[in-house]
């Protein structure tokens, strides 16, 4: 399982580094979305740092949907799917590898967007740094859950539109906890409770992925 996970992780990251979709498409989208959030709030409220955490996570969530689709689309070419299927890779390893690659990509994006929320939405830099551990865990949980939901919807009718329908409601509790922990960090409140909750969610999704990814691959 670990060997397969490392193999798939390296393959996914290599594809991303070669294609640069994250750099040239996803990041600009994320930054533009942050700007739109500021515009939507209006000039008097755009610099209000209390909106920062929620808007950061809202944009990150939209970015995550793009990246989940991208992560699944590299496997979706009919010929690729069939050929890779004949390699008989351990599905739990594939799940872990894809989740880890997606997590790395989300962390990279998250750091840029965090910087964006500090600059554009005037979120406190100190608070953003304090919130980093919970951001890391939230995005990891998003990556793991996203890999599962991406596999659930790939290949079906209207897969691109079905993913948000299934994933957004399921992500909402993660983002509530993420936003609360970020806000707690900004206001010097206790963040460790939220951090623990996120860790539990991350563990549960990981366990379910390891157990059930094979079932999704079979289908």
């Amino acid at each position, binding site marked *: 399982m670990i060997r*397969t996970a490392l*193999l798939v992780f390296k*393959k996914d990251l*290599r*594809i991303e580094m*070669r*294609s640069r979709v994250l750099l040239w498409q996803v990041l600009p989208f994320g930054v533009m979305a942050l700007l739109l959030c500021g515009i939507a709030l209006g000039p008097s409220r755009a610099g209000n740092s209390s909106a920062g955490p929620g808007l950061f996570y809202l944009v990150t969530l939209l970015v995550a949907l793009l990246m989940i689709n991208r992560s699944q689309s*590299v496997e979706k*070419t*009919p*010929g*690729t799917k*069939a*050929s890779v*299927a*004949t*390699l*008989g*890779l351990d599905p739990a390893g594939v799940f872990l590898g894809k989740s880890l690659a997606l997590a790395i990509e989300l962390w990279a994006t998250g750091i840029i967007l965090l910087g964006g929320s500090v600059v554009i939405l005037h979120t406190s830099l100190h608070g953003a740094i304090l919130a980093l551990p919970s951001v890391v865990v939230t995005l990891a949980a998003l990556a793991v859950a996203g890999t599962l939901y991406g596999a659930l919807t790939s290949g079906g009718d209207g897969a691109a539109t079905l993913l948000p329908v299934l994933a957004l409601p399921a992500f909402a509790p993660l983002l509530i906890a993420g936003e609360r922990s970020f806000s707690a960090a900004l206001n010097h409140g206790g963040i460790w409770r939220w951090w623990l909750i996120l860790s539990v969610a991350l563990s549960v999704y990981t366990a379910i992925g390891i157990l059930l990814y*094979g079932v999704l691959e*079979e289908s």
Partner: protein
Amino acid sequence: MTNAVTPTVDLHNAVVLSGGFPLLSGVDLQLLPSSLTVITGANGAGKTSLLRLLAGLVPLSEGSGTVAGVDLANGDLRELRRRVGWLGHEGSFYDDLTVRENLTFAAKALERPLIEIERALQRVGLSNRIDTTTKKLSAGQRRRLGLSWLLIRRPEIWLLDEPYASLDDEARTFFDALITDVLRSGATVVISAHDKLKSEALQPRTIVLGGGRIVSES
């Protein structure tokens, strides 16, 4: 006293459904080791569906069958997929990876020594494109890359979906020689094509599909 040879493929009234539509409507088929079978038929006859069933890529909806010793109805299809080799006509690899990277991925997944990559590429004549990304290869070159993948894998059953499409005469001759070698090694080869094979080197059994089942064979 001769020993009966166990068929590599043994299907009985195999039905494959997709959304309620029968892609295969009852196929009876037995294939032996070291045999070459060509499956022909019009578009929509079920050629690719039959190959995908044999590859364990689609489930058996009704009927029964074993492929490479794996029961299609109740067996482990993942194990079946390890035992078969698939060459599709859509292109088989990650477009953004190079030839070397794609084959290294496959070799490491199968725990094959990496030296086999170079041997396979030499055999198919792609050594000079080893660091080219797959999306820059021509259709014929992608087909050769697929063959090199199979040469590394050395499966019991080779399932080739319209492999002769977009091959020139030289490539066809090379392909025939490769298939002859594969048959000699004991593998079962199944090829789908629109028409009968026009090959002097190969003497295949030809099966014609129509309406999702076998209508004639020679």
